[in-house]
């Protein structure tokens, strides 16, 4: 029999609805047809999930429940409330930033490359890979999160310190800085750190600038040469 005759038998097969003869023929076909075998594997878990469901769900479709009319007004109310709160916080955060300027506020955590998924750190937005703009041993990905006081940045760095790499044999590990550029042309150094070769390190930094005002973020050497950059999508 040809593949076409079996192409739709996978569903009935995993549900156990084929006759004995049909099942036997289909199973023989599975030995020779990778497409059907893969398809069966993809569907094989579904009967187990279906078994958790009350069959009544299939008999009587739920009456469509309209979205409550109060939802949108409440959401917009929250939006306004959070905007007011943010205006106050940004003012406070800017004042704090003045006090801290030049200190390089950065909090460190470290983890081994080999470590699996440990206890999760504070939830952060997914990180995007930064683009290489110079020849260097650092690779990094960056996540930015809008918070009440501005923007939280989380940087995950990897250092490709290959022992055979003759180009990389510094006497001391290099240091880097994280630099934020904003729409109005300001440049702010938000963190500095030392490379830890062979390690993946995560550091977080903060700025009072709004997420939407940030145009790009660079990783530079301490002498100011850009090695990585991430340009924000214009919204």
């Amino acid at each position, binding site marked *: 029999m040809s593949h076409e005759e079996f192409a739709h038998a996978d*569903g009935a097969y995993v549900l156990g*609805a084929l006759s004995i003869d049909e099942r036997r023929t289909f199973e023989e076909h599975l030995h020779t047809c990778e497409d059907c075998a893969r398809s069966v594997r993809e569907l094989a878990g579904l009967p187990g999930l279906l078994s958790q469901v009350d069959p009544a769900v299939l008999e009587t479709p739920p009456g469509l429940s309209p*979205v409550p009319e109060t939802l949108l007004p409440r959401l917009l109310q929250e939006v306004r409330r959070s905007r007011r709160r943010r205006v106050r916080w940004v003012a406070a955060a800017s004042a704090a930033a003045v006090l801290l300027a030049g200190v390089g506020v950065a909090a460190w955590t470290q983890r081994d490359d080999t470590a699996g998924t440990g206890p999760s750190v504070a939830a952060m937005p997914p990180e995007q890979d930064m683009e290489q703009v110079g020849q260097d041993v650092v690779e990094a990905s960056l996540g930015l999160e809008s918070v009440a006081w501005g923007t939280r940045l989380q940087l995950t760095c990897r250092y490709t310190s290959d022992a055979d790499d003759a180009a990389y044999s510094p006497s001391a590990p290099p240091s880097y800085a994280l630099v934020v550029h904003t729409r109005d042309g300001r440049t702010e150094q938000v963190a500095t750190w030392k490379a830890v070769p062979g390690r993946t390190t995560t550091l977080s930094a903060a700025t009072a600038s709004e997420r939407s005002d940030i145009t790009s973020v660079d990783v530079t050497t301490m002498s100011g040469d850009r090695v990585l950059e991430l340009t924000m999508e214009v919204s």
Partner: protein
Amino acid sequence: MASSEDQLMQALHDEHAAALWSYCVRLTGTDRARAQDVCQETLLRAWQHPEVLSRPPATIRRWLFTVARNIVIDEWRSRRAHRETVTADPPDQLPEHEEADQLLQSWVVAEAVSRLSTDHRRVLYECYFQGRSVADAARRLELPEGTVKSRTHYALRALRLALEEMGVTS
């Protein structure tokens, strides 16, 4: 004043509230007041993460479902922790969080099933829940056997997609 932030929230609501609402109703065991709280909190978090919204619609939807589910799970956990400190109940035989996760998963599957078309639900009902063969189901549904087969195929494909969107992988 309708700011761009209001507009963003309005757009989020228009695009996703209906699907998210129905999911939240299911997830809260049709407790509509709680469903609305969860729905509201989820959309608010999405609004606070504009970077999420630049992703493809299916990814956004999945993100929303995940956030909603986590909110429900967190509520359960904190209520349980509270009750444990208050009454010092002896632990149940089955760890409660596993039970809760399973209950939640069964609701998510029910939600995915209820999104299937009537035709798809009917073949699954006959061929799986009633345990009928393709031939029997075909007689009952007054359809050719080939149609029953292809409907079970497409019904399960559609179910798998819906479940993936809700963060359940089979």
